[in-house]
């Protein structure tokens, strides 16, 4: 071990430690500020969800009217939490997979502040009544160039690292992440330029907006989460992925099908007739990339069942993958033209599907990644297995409730809307029980993320455990199956524990 010439495993360990050290500040910044925005978003979600069934709640102030808090809630969730979690994971994974230390940590950190500045002024803009009124693009117009600039300054280094990487095969996670990094600016620039700079037919503008929402879900959040899951699962179990060709099939089906999705939300609107049908067909076909990837990841993980149960990372990642299966099923079930689409088009299902994709799938995989990455970059272990368990179970209860409401409640509400013989008041009242369920679900998710945020904050302050044993979700300390989880080289690079993985 202490020979003068380092062996290749020792070199690897040194390289990994160097990468983790170089990225500590930007990654921790993205993850903690993302978690803070998640908390803001959930609080706004509880407030606006409560207003749906109790409209008198906090109604005296213009800043807290439903139309503003609900818009702020979704935008904070998407751009504050979703994108920042994705940035943290992308820059770390791309460095690790390209085997390059990050040489621009300071610039990325600055760009991260620019992004956060854009989100902050955007949210203040929405709450103070300067929203644009375009769903998911409600930030006042001045915010998007700031965000775009921040985005490029954050991810450009990952492209460069990929370009100068050492020779070797490219892993499927890199394809997914690269694709997401290319698709997002394309979608974002297209939508913002068409809607803000080149005015066109207002109905078609609404169509572009529906396509934008769909593209953010399917062409950014989905590939980022899949790339992460394809990295974490083999890494933690120590097994290669079940089928590499299936993984490629999943990737290319996502790339070919999903850009067409989105405009089914405008079925019946005066836009060219093929657009809603193409959108519905593409959204239904989401089950192909979803199921191929989910089966592949689950088969990989199920080969070592104990690890899934014990490792926080894998437990969250697998829950996210199951969320992906539910999301793929819901995409089919909610978007069948001629049968369910007319019920889901203007009901709670739309919002529910968005939450399903952002929280049940994407966020769970991101939590898994955070439980993996943070100990490595802070060189401290998670403090408390109980806090992790609370975070996991309460989040699961919340999101299962939301999924049930999204799929069945939304359809029930839609059936009521379509019953033209009963009065509209009676139709609208059908949403009340589901609105209550949503509020309860958001309260559960708020509670679970309170634990998560506190835990992450403690880790950020480097108050985690100094140990070479990872925090696993088993109660006895007697033996630690850390061989499979992978040890963290808290003893320093080059030590035996570091060389083991």
């Amino acid at each position: 071990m202490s020979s003068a010439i380092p062996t290749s495993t020792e070199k690897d360990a040194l390289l990994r430690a160097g990468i983790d050290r170089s990225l500590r500040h930007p990654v921790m910044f993205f993850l903690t500020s993302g978690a803070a925005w998640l908390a803001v978003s959930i609080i706004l979600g509880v407030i606006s969800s409560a207003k749906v069934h109790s409209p008198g709640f906090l109604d005296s102030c213009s800043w807290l009217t439903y139309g503003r808090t609900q818009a702020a809630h979704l935008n904070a969730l998407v751009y504050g939490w979703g994108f920042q979690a994705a940035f943290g994971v992308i820059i770390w994974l791309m460095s690790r997979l390209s085997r390059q230390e990050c040489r621009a940590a300071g610039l990325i950190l600055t760009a991260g502040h620019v992004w956060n500045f854009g989100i902050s002024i955007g949210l203040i803009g929405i709450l103070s009544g300067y929203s644009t009124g375009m769903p998911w693009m409600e930030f006042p117009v001045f915010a998007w160039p700031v965000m775009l600039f921040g985005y490029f300054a954050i991810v450009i280094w990952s492209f460069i690292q990929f370009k100068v990487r050492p020779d070797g095969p490219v892993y499927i996670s890199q394809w997914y992440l690269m694709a997401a990094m290319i698709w997002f600016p394309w979608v974002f620039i297209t939508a913002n330029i068409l809607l803000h700079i080149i005015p066109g037919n207002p109905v078609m503008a609404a169509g572009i907006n529906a396509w934008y929402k769909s593209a953010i879900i399917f062409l950014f959040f989905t590939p980022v989460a899949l790339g992460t899951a394809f990295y974490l699962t083999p890494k933690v179990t120590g097994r290669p992925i079940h089928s590499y060709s299936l993984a490629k099939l999943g990737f290319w089906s996502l790339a070919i099908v999903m850009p067409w999705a989105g405009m089914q939300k405008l079925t019946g609107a005066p836009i060219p007739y093929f657009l809603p049908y193409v959108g519905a067909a593409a959204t239904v076909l989401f089950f192909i990339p979803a199921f191929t990837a989910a089966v592949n990841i689950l088969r990989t993980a199920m080969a070592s069942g104990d690890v899934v149960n014990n490792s926080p990372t894998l437990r969250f990642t697998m829950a996210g993958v199951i969320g992906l299966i539910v999301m793929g099923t819901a995409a089919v079930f909610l978007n069948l033209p001629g049968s369910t689409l007319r019920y889901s088009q203007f009901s709670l299902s739309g919002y529910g599907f968005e939450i399903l994709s952002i929280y049940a799938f994407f966020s769970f995989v991101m939590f898994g990644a955070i439980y993996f990455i943070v100990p490595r970059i802070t060189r401290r272990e998670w403090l408390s297995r109980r806090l992790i368990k609370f975070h996991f179970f309460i989040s699961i209860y919340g999101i299962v409730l939301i999924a049930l409401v999204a799929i069945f409640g939304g359809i029930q509400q839609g059936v009521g809307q379509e019953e033209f013989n009963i009065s509209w008041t009676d139709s609208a009242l059908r949403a009340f029980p589901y609105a209550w369920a949503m509020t309860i679900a958001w309260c559960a998710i708020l509670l679970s993320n309170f634990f998560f945020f506190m835990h992450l904050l403690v880790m950020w302050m480097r108050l985690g455990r100094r140990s070479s044993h990872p925090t696993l979700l088993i109660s006895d300390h007697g033996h630690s199956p850390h061989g499979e989880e992978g040890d963290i080289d808290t003893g320093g690079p080059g030590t035996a524990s570091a060389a083991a993985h």
Partner: protein
Amino acid sequence: MSFRTFFLSLSASFGVAWLAVVIVPYFKMRSLEPLSMGDDASGTNVVFIPKRAGRITEGAEVYAENGCYLCHTQLVRPTYAGNDMFRPDWGGFKYDDERGDSRRETNAYDFFGEDFAQIGVARMGPDLSNLGVRVVNAYAMDISPEDWLYRHLYNPRWKPERRDSACPSFRFLFDEKDIKGNPSDEALEFAGIHGGEITPTPDARALVSYLLSLKKDQPVPDSLNFSPPAAAPTPAPAALIPAPAVGKEGDAVKTDAAPSEATPAPAEVAPAP
């Protein structure tokens, strides 16, 4: 696979969809030709361009800023996509006093003058495509339509039959102030407070102008009319014949519909309830 191949394949798979569903339809729909409505009595060609401007477009901004689109849609879907046309007064009135059946679907010209069509994302509240028609014809019976909307915005649950409404109150769009000298002409009569008065802010006035402008029931050119009246070359479907009881004497629609009354009267022609 090299990065170059990857990037080209990715651009191709995304680019085709991007052109087909986003760029080409958007630029094709950018400049819709005004449609001819035929000649009027004096021989001038009338075009269909329901443009809105001024305070109405300011009201559209208030509508957007306060997130009305999160609960209200502005889309009357054709029957293949939903039952909106069958809901009384959503798509217009089936038994309009002057024109008989004034119902129609939303068309691409309906949002002229707005930046963004507020199609909406959910129907926690009713569709607002024809709110203006509804307020004038059905809701504001003893007060002016503007007053009805001010009351509704101030407290959506002010009527017993609306006590279950989930609509938020927009009290912040109104000013409460003490009366000094003469009371304001614009003060709301319903909500007087002791020694004071409540007046709509400019935002509230713009919003109400906008809401009253939501009328998508005007006659449309034949090329946009998917349920043409009996004047069209093809015989009208029975359901669209106006009920004889409400048609006015000498009404064009009724006169034109007369020949088809020879056909056996279907159930839908039964008088309005």
